């Protein structure tokens, strides 16, 4: 540790890191507050608009619909993850399962692809690079200067020597770079939290802290072991930088290209045409909407034992609308189900590649615990769609019950609108997050087993000759 602090590079990297960290944290915190204010205001306003509707037919109200807004999590201050690439609002209206729209990246301008500097990025990419630059000659320099012979001639074993080097690297990075930053980050998060939010976010925050800590330990160990194994500082540095660049920059892009070829997703035009076509023709060969309406009518007459629509004890308009909705749900379940399964297969392939890159592993784990990954987005999409269906059923049942004899002329009022609660997204709990990250945590474990083996075998081969 003492030796490291005498390293000139350490004194250059430390202030650069802290300046970048300060800016990234401040921005993360401002952005969180800004976006959550907009989101909660919009959510409240659109709900008020829903409640303030004039008397109208329940189906007209269903068309007016409601919006579900995806809230930003408190931990997105540290790791905004994929949020800019995911939509943030979905219109819950009659007949249509809409996609979650409004990706921030579309308005980000000409530098959109570079992303915005954030704390997680610094911890995932910059800190390992700093470790590499500080650790690459930790043992090789001892070889090159001939001091290793002297060190190993003492009572110190090779294993103790390597462990000492690793501990020195690790503690320096933890004490000067990571732990104080984690503390500052925690304070900012507490300050931004409302009410009990902080307690809800605590398990995720602690998990992130733990895994980032392990991750930095992994790089410290890797740096020292490679330095001992390769013995030539230049070779160590180039190998570590190559590993960093390949794992952090190259692998995700190559992986994405391969994942897309293995599990191709449809184009928007293909998808919408298929959905439209199946909605028009019916999912089970039911025929056009008009034919389907005839089937619904015939079934209703038999069910209620009457011979005309007028004699039905329920509003046929409500009955037909609900049957139409349920027919559409089958189509949506089929196509959106296929689409989301394709995304999940692509993600599963990318997760397998994470095994080859600790950076990608940690990126996934961090986004998972921060609630800024695709899993949470799909969960939000699912909950919003369930809410949409719940609203449609409520509107149609009201039409069925109260629209007898008036059919489309029936007007519902605020009493019905009030029966619809405001949409509240229920985020997965910590246990569910851990389950979603099971593979990544397992892969991280494999890395540590590999490094333990590496430590053992390098220690055996370490000799000053």
């Amino acid at each position, binding site marked *: 540790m003492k030796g490291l602090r005498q390293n000139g590079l350490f004194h250059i990297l430390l202030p650069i890191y802290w300046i970048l960290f300060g800016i990234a944290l401040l921005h993360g915190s*401002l952005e969180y507050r800004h976006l959550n204010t907009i989101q909660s205001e919009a959510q409240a306003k*659109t709900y008020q608009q829903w409640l303030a509707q004039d008397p109208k037919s329940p189906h007209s109200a269903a068309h007016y619909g409601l919006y579900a807004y995806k809230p930003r999590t408190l931990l997105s201050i540290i790791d905004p993850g994929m949020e800019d690439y995911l939509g943030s609002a979905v219109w819950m209206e009659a007949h249509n399962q809409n996609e979650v729209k409004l*990706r921030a990246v*579309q308005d980000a301008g000409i530098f*959109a692809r570079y992303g915005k500097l954030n704390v997680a990025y610094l911890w995932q990419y910059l800190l390992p690079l700093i470790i590499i630059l500080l650790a690459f000659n930790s043992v090789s320099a001892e070889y090159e200067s001939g001091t290793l012979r002297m060190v190993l001639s003492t009572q110190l074993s090779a294993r103790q020597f390597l462990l000492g080097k690793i501990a020195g690297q690790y503690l320096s990075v933890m004490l000067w770079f990571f732990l104080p930053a984690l503390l500052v980050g925690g304070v900012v998060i507490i300050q931004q939290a409302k009410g009990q939010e902080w307690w809800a976010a605590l398990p995720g925050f602690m998990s992130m802290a733990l895994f980032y800590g392990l991750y930095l330990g992994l790089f410290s160990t890797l740096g020292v072991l490679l330095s001992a194994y390769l013995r030539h500082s230049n070779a160590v540095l180039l190998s570590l*930088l190559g590993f960093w660049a390949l794992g952090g920059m190259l692998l*995700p892009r190559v992986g*994405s290209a391969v994942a897309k070829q293995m599990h*191709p997703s449809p184009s928007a035009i293909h998808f919408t*045409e298929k959905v439209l076509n199946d909605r028009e023709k019916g999912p089970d060969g039911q025929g056009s909407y008009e034919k389907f309406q005839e089937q619904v009518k015939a079934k209703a007459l038999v069910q209620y034992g009457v011979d005309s629509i007028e004699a039905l004890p329920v509003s046929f308009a409500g009955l037909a609308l609900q049957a139409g909705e349920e027919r559409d749900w089958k189509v949506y379940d089929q196509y959106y189900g296929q689409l989301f399964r394709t995304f999940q297969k692509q993600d599963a392939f990318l997760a397998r590649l994470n095994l080859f890159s600790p950076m990608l592993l940690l990126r996934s784990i961090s986004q998972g615990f921060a609630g800024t990954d695709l899993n949470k987005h799909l969960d939000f999409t699912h909950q919003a769609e369930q809410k949409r269906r719940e609203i449609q059923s409520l509107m149609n049942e009201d039409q069925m019950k109260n629209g007898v004899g008036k059919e489309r002329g029936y007007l519902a009022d605020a009493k019905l609108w009030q029966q619809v609660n405001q949409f509240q997204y229920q985020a997965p709990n910590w246990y569910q997050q851990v389950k979603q990250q099971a593979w990544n945590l397992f892969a991280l474990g494999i890395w540590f087993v590999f490094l333990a083996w590496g430590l053992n075998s390098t220690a055996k081969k370490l000799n000053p000759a």
Partner: protein
Amino acid sequence: MFFTILYYDWQILKAGRLLPIGLGLLGIFVLLACWTGQKRLDFQEQALREVANAEAQLHRESRATVATLQKSGATFTGNSHRNPLEPGGAANATGNRYFTLPVLPSAIIAAGQSDLQANYYKFSLNKKQALYHSEEIENASILYNGQFDLAFVIVLLLPLLAIALRYNLLVQERERGTLSFLQSSLASTFQIALAKSVLRYALLLGSFGLLSALGTWIFGRALPLESWLKMMGIVAIYLGFWFVLASLIDKPQSRSGRNAAILVSAWLGFSILVPAMLNLLVNVWYPVPSRIKWIAEAREAAAEARKNSEQILGQFYEDHPELMPKSQQIDYKNFAAVSFSSNQNIEKAVAPLEKALEGRIAERNAFLERFRWFSPAPMVQLALEDLAGTGHERYQAFQTQMKEAHEIYRAYFAEKIFKLEKMTAEDYDRIPITRFIERVNP
């Protein structure tokens, strides 16, 4: 002397491992980029073909249905929202037109905005704000990771290879003890460094040029000569920058590790941190007004329009007396007319927010344009995107023309809707078709 050093250095390079490894990696990177580029363009072109087919098929079927109904004098019995005889049904369902952005032959160079922005829009009577919801379906994880395209190889990977080939040319001679031997010849240290740098620069540039030409050809996406030459011009300057920077760092009294650390830090700073920092600063100084606000505003206006729909429709006819029906009677129950005139009001209500957003995006881009000189990486990235026809400017032109085309499309149907006219088979042939006109010369 210069050429002698060049010759002997070439012999040393040939015998070593660095050159075959470096060029081998470059070959893999370029071929991978060409393969992913081919797949990306195939996907985009396939989507555009599907758009064209969907448009043609819809037109054919709707026209035939209308012709049959005209001939028989029968009325349409299906879904009223899809009635092909009604201009409202035609505009929203049976006569849809698309506005598409063609893929340029040079698009393999950079994905640019092509996976973030819509490449085609479907027109209907909807509010123009609804068009902003158009986007291609893509897994966010894949979007987030970014594309492995030639631009990525050029902007991020070529500098790393340049650093690997150049970072310790002089230091290495000193470390090996051969520098004094070289200096004892007639060549100066500068000449030695220059000859070695020129050789590596030429090898890297030449190999990239050859591999990119070969790779794009193998994958059936050969670049037009002009585009290839422009790309190589950009690459030559960019590689030159990294070689000059490496030369400034590589002093005989330095150390290899120190050189590598400084150059890689510079690469990280220029290629990733500076652009990400600029992005962050522009977000603080010019925050984008959220489109979420539009939603509440549009719904407010929609609720208001619903309450006053008759008044709005009456006002519309007052403003457009030329659209009065022959009967001179306003049909206040005409869904399409009420909906169209109400939508106009909603658009007016949202227009200030839209203008603010567009103004802010322009301010952000102006800021980024002004400060992109801080780093060569985004400069090169943007130049390559423009060359590929996937840059911001072309997409902006596309969106501007799309909005104009949407207006033309709606105006065609609005006339029939307000005049209470029916659609004929011939009317289907007259539905405006507008195509994108290239205004930017990539």
